[in-house]
């Protein structure tokens, strides 16, 4: 028992005993007071005072505190008053009010209900004065003072002055005087003198009477005092309402703008406007608070308070046509005139306060500085110290035209270098000169053979570059350093350059030339055969030589086949997305060229523009190409192209037919194969289907893919046995699918599953790959379809087992790559960490791998480079896993049976087998749990892909249902056995631990 107790683990802090201290009681009371017990039912709640004591209890409980606290609230308790009345001292008949019988708190409550004047609405300050007086009286009563009785009203007055007023008063300001009037002595004297002089000049001045009176008084002291005193008396008594006459119809003291001061501002401005103009001038809300935040919101109405302002609420129509101003035309000059008038008025009155005049002479002089003197030789263009092009003055007289050197290679080389130098600047020339000093080929750089020609070319290039730079496209997309094209690079390296390309690049992008070229190309490229010659490849990306190079590379690979170099996927500076996009572009271009309609058909850029509209991708670089095509030509092209009609099968819902009062054209027919969603899809999937065995180009996929390829190759070498291994490698793909597949799809695919196998023979290669891709669980059923020899009697799990065994053996072949494969094989088991500890420890080595691998699979899926066969395999897995999910309950029943079968297998392989089984179990779990969650989001994101899949799998839905049934059975079984076994293993390991 002691041992057991030692094993106890305590979590958290123990709950304190309640009867400890009074503080806890108090705490509890506070907690209760703050509503902790509110949640209790009313009859279980207890009323306690702030001390935490129960105040309400029965008549006989509660003890001392019952009487004292609950009733009278005095130590003496409740004592009845004696009634005495005598002749001298008559008992007053007191008028009892309810207040006599109320407790303090109840009185406070009652006060809350009673009506009173709010000091907020105290317009005249009378209530405030009253209150202050009362307060003073109260205080007076409380503390004894020298003066008996309440202080007279004259003495105690409420301090109702604002802080500003009191400050001003402190500074010597008197009421009723304008602030400027406060006079510093000497200045005042001076002014007085001046005023006197002025008075002598013009006696009709408005100020005459006042000054006259001043003059009469004579005494400056008096003069200064006189208004002050009188004003003081006057204004001290003047209530607020005289200063601010009530002009509205609101209730007294009611301020409608109390909570929205902006409106006050608005109202005032409107009022003043009315006063000023008489006619209503539109109140400009543009800059005020009332102008809508976004000016594009339609005026006059808003949307619901609960709605968010979206882009859709923007007033698109307001952009071009300000319909507020659109009437100006009709009204004509009158409006404008009045507007101008208004403006003038505004100008006049803006700077000046009411009652003031604009001074004609001001002391204040704004200091003005003259602009700095620009030196005469200043050129307002910044010149870079290491110029790109300026070394070759464009104004230079062109070098004489020189015939190219006889050697064709040399000519091309010179041209290439010239292009390059023009692009990269003089520095490059120097560099290459230095580098190639010994190289006779580059002697032209040092004034050797062909130097003249080089100079000429360079000049031409520079000329051209200048033209180019005027186009916004030039040099914007990529840094200049990377403008070095593969061609020029090749030239530097001394490779044999492509013949036409350089000349094409050098041809200026004049529209005529483009058209000509396109016509030429259309003549040349009517047959795809011509693609065999990369030299004659069309130049759809003429404006972007590196891109063109990549395109050529792409074409070469496409039509020649063979392995693709990894670098071909694009230059290093391109992002994955760019690369994928570019590939699509290339494909589109290739298709366009292939069709032989290059001259009169759509340019890839146009097509891509269409696409970009559909997908939201932006093909910025391609879009610029349109500039080269003249408008007329474009129109011609579109006219020839459009309208284009396509027809698809479409199945109306039966209810729809019913509602339209039509007969369902598909009544009784199986559901249609959904077709690909868009052009984008077809672009994505078509080439892959065609070139199923084509290795992947996408660099993102490249690592994992190449690995797989490698494995595949090895698998082929090893023969049948290793097949199992490879298929296991492929598993994460189906795992991924199983996770994200959605149910409805699976139901469909279930029936259409096996028809896939009857695909045309052109995909035989795909079929063989397929056989490798498919998990061991389904090998049997598949093998039947494919005509592979699989022992029919073997149970599914056993078969799988064998596969694992083989793998095990092959692992010992000391091939490191296989080892890695082996690791991957058991990857999923690492995720199922609920197994025994020992296993987990082993597998913990690879969780990183798991994530990585999954990610790479995802990448495969996303880039949609997966071959057709893969997809088919995926479809299978998906289906099976869903099946296994559906039949979980059945599995359990069956598990006992299969489990026994498994027992007979060799014990040495036990662990491996268990791991495998666990992995499978995990998968099925995955499909159980996460499919439902993530399918929705996934569907959205990958709609296009799933469509493609669907398309594949449900192509031939109508045949061979029995296969699927058989298949179902198998699939049902395998997870069950594995489940059982893993369970068993689990218990075993437990037992081991106990020991």
């Amino acid at each position, binding site marked *: 028992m002691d041992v057991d107790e030692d094993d106890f683990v305590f979590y958290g802090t123990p709950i304190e005993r309640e009867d400890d201290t009074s503080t806890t009681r108090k705490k509890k009371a506070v907690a209760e007071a703050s509503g902790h017990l509110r949640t209790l039912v009313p009859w279980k709640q207890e009323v306690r005072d702030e001390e935490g004591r129960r105040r309400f209890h029965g008549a006989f409980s509660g003890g001392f505190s019952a009487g004292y606290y609950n009733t009278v609230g005095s130590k003496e308790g409740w004592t009845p008053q004696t009634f005495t009345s005598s002749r001298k001292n008559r008992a007053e008949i007191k008028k009892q009010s309810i207040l006599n019988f109320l407790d303090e708190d109840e009185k406070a409550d009652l006060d809350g209900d009673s009506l009173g004047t709010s000091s907020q609405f105290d317009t005249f300050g009378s209530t405030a004065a009253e209150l202050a007086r009362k307060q003073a009286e109260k205080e007076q009563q409380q503390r004894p003072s020298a003066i008996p009785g309440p202080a007279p009203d004259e003495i105690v007055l409420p301090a109702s002055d604002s802080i500003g007023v009191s400050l001003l008063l402190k500074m010597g300001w008197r009421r009723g005087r304008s602030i400027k009037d406060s006079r510093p002595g000497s200045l005042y004297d001076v002014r007085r003198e001046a005023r006197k002089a002025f008075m002598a000049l013009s006696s009709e001045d408005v100020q005459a009477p006042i000054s006259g009176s001043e003059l009469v008084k004579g005494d400056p002291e008096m003069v200064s005092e006189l208004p002050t005193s009188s004003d003081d008396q006057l204004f001290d008594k003047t209530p607020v309402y005289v200063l601010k006459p009530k002009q509205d119809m609101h209730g007294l003291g009611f301020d409608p703008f109390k909570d929205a001061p902006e409106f006050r501002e608005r109202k005032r401005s409107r009022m003043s406007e009315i006063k000023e103009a008489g006619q209503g001038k539109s109140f400009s809300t543009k800059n005020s608070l009332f102008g809508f935040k976004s000016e594009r919101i339609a005026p006059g109405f808003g949307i*619901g308070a609960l709605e968010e302002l979206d882009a859709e609420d923007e007033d698109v129509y307001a952009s071009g046509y300000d319909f507020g101003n659109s009437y100006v035309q009709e009204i004509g000059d009158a409006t404008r005139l009045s507007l101008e008038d208004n403006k003038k008025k505004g100008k006049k009155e803006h700077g000046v306060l009411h009652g003031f005049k604009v001074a004609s002479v001001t002391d204040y002089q704004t200091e003005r500085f003259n602009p700095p003197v620009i030196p005469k030789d200043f050129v307002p263009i910044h010149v870079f110290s290491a110029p790109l092009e300026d070394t070759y003055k464009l104004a230079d007289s062109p070098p004489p035209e020189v015939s190219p050197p006889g050697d064709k290679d040399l000519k091309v080389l010179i041209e290439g270098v010239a292009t390059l130098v023009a692009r990269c600047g003089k520095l490059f020339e120097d560099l290459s000169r230095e580098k190639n000093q010994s190289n006779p080929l580059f002697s032209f750089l040092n004034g050797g053979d062909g130097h003249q020609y080089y100079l000429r070319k360079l000049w031409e290039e520079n000329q051209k570059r200048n033209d180019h730079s005027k186009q916004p496209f030039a040099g914007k997309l990529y840094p200049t350093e990377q403008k070095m094209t593969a061609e020029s690079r090749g030239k530097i390296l001394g490779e044999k350059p492509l013949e036409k390309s350089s000349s094409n690049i050098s041809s200026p992008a004049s529209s005529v030339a483009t058209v000509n070229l396109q016509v030429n190309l259309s003549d040349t490229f009517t047959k795809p055969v011509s693609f065999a010659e990369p030299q004659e490849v069309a130049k759809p990306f003429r404006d972007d030589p590196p891109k063109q190079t990549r395109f050529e590379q792409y074409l070469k690979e496409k039509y020649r086949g063979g392995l693709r170099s990894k670098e071909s996927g694009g230059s290093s500076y391109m992002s994955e997305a760019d690369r994928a996009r570019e590939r699509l572009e290339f494909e589109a271009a290739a298709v366009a060229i292939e069709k032989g309609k290059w001259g009169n058909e759509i340019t890839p850029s146009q097509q891509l523009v*269409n696409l970009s509209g559909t997908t939201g991708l932006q093909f910025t670089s391609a879009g610029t190409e349109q500039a080269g095509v003249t408008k007329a030509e474009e129109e011609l092209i579109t006219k020839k192209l459009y309208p284009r009609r396509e027809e698809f099968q479409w199945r109306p819902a039966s209810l729809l037919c019913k509602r339209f009062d039509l007969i369902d054209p598909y009544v009784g027919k199986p559901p249609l194969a959904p077709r690909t969603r868009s052009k984008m899809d077809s672009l994505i999937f078509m080439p892959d289907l065609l070139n199923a065995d084509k290795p992947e180009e996408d660099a993102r996929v490249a690592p994992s893919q190449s690995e797989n390829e490698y494995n595949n190759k090895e698998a082929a070498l090893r023969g049948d046995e290793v097949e199992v291994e490879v298929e296991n490698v492929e598993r994460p793909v189906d795992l991924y699918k199983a996770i994200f597949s959605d149910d409805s799809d699976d139901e469909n695919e279930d029936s259409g599953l096996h028809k896939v196998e009857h695909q045309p023979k052109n995909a035989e290669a795909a079929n063989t790959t397929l056989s490798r891709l498919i998990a061991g669980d389904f090998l049997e059923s598949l093998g039947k379809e494919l005509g592979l020899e699989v022992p029919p009697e073997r149970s599914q799990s056993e078969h799988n087992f064998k596969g694992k065994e083989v793998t095990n053996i092959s692992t010992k072949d000391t091939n490191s790559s296989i080892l890695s494969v082996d690791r991957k094989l058991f990857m999923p088991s690492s995720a199922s960490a609920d197994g025994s500890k020992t296993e987990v420890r082993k597998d913990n080595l690879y969780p990183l791998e798991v994530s990585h691998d999954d990610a790479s699979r995802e990448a495969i899926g996303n880039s949609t480079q997966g071959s057709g066969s893969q997809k088919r395999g995926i479809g299978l897995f998906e289906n099976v896993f869903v099946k296994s999910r559906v039949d979980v309950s059945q599995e359990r029943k069956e598990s006992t049976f299969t489990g026994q079968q498994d027992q007979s297998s060799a014990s040495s392989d036990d662990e491996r087998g268990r791991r495998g089984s666990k992995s499978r179990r995990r998968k099925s779990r995955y499909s159980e749990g996460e499919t439902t969650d993530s399918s929705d989001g996934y569907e959205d994101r990958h709609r296009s892909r799933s469509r493609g899949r669907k398309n594949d799998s449900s192509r031939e839905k109508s045949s061979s249902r029995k296969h699927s049934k058989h298949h179902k059975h198998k699939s049902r079984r395998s997870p069950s056995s594995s489940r059982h076994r893993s369970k068993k293993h689990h218990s075993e390991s437990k037992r081991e631990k106990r020991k």
Partner: protein
Amino acid sequence: MSSGAKLPTTEANVLKGHEGGVLAARFNSDGNYCLSCGKDGTIRLWNPHRGIHIKTYKSHGRQVRDVHVTPDNSKLTSCGGDRQVFYWDVATGHVIRKFAGHHSEVNAVKFNHYASVVVSAGYDRSLRVWDCRSHSTQPIQIMDTFSDSVMSLCLTKTEIIAGSVDGTVRTFDIRIGREISDDLGQPVNCITLSNDGNCVLASCLDSTLRLMDRSTGELLQEYKGHTCKSFKMDCCLTNTDAHVVGGSEDGSIFFWDLVDASVVSSFRAHSSVVTSVSYHPKDNCMITASVDGTIRVWKS
């Protein structure tokens, strides 16, 4: 009634009442009334011939983009920025049902001939068919083969035709079970059926109206001269199919000859974008709606 009849170019009435732009104005099936909807989220029923505002239907929370009334004038359907299709009772002005399902704004809505179904076209690239007869909240069918916002739709007795910004006019033939996609190459803004039902007039965003033969998919004629580059603007054919009518972004109305595509008449009708034109089914009468907040009735 004949093709020689005068075009409705004189203003008969101005219907004012909408705050902000009017996005659509439609005659009812017999042409006695018209419905308008606008940015203020209201639908208004008018008698355009007398210039009377009859009723206002308020329930939309955002702008209303399209409205359609059943042939028997008993029900309305409308759609707009609040992503729902509203199904109204005309007489009471109550919303009978709201069909929710579009992921984004709904651009156009139409009843079918029997008023048993509402078809809506949304910015979410889909057409949705809603059942008015049952109480199901799910659409009967979703056509999501479009690759961009579906702007406009037309219904015949057997077909659903819709035009999309992806440049296609797709005809869903329920009787045959086919979908015919006619790619016009330019974003389609509005489509209208000719009165004989043989042609589709499509307003494209390249300031061109295109007349397409429905059976062959051939481009019959192009009508140019107006401006239509950025807004959803209606176009229509006159009831005799003799002329094509279209609005312009500068507030003008254009009449083209159907056959030779010459501009027969054009006049400035509104001070702002003409969003909608609707032609009377029998008379030489036309209503135009504009962002300037007015609906104008034109007669010859």
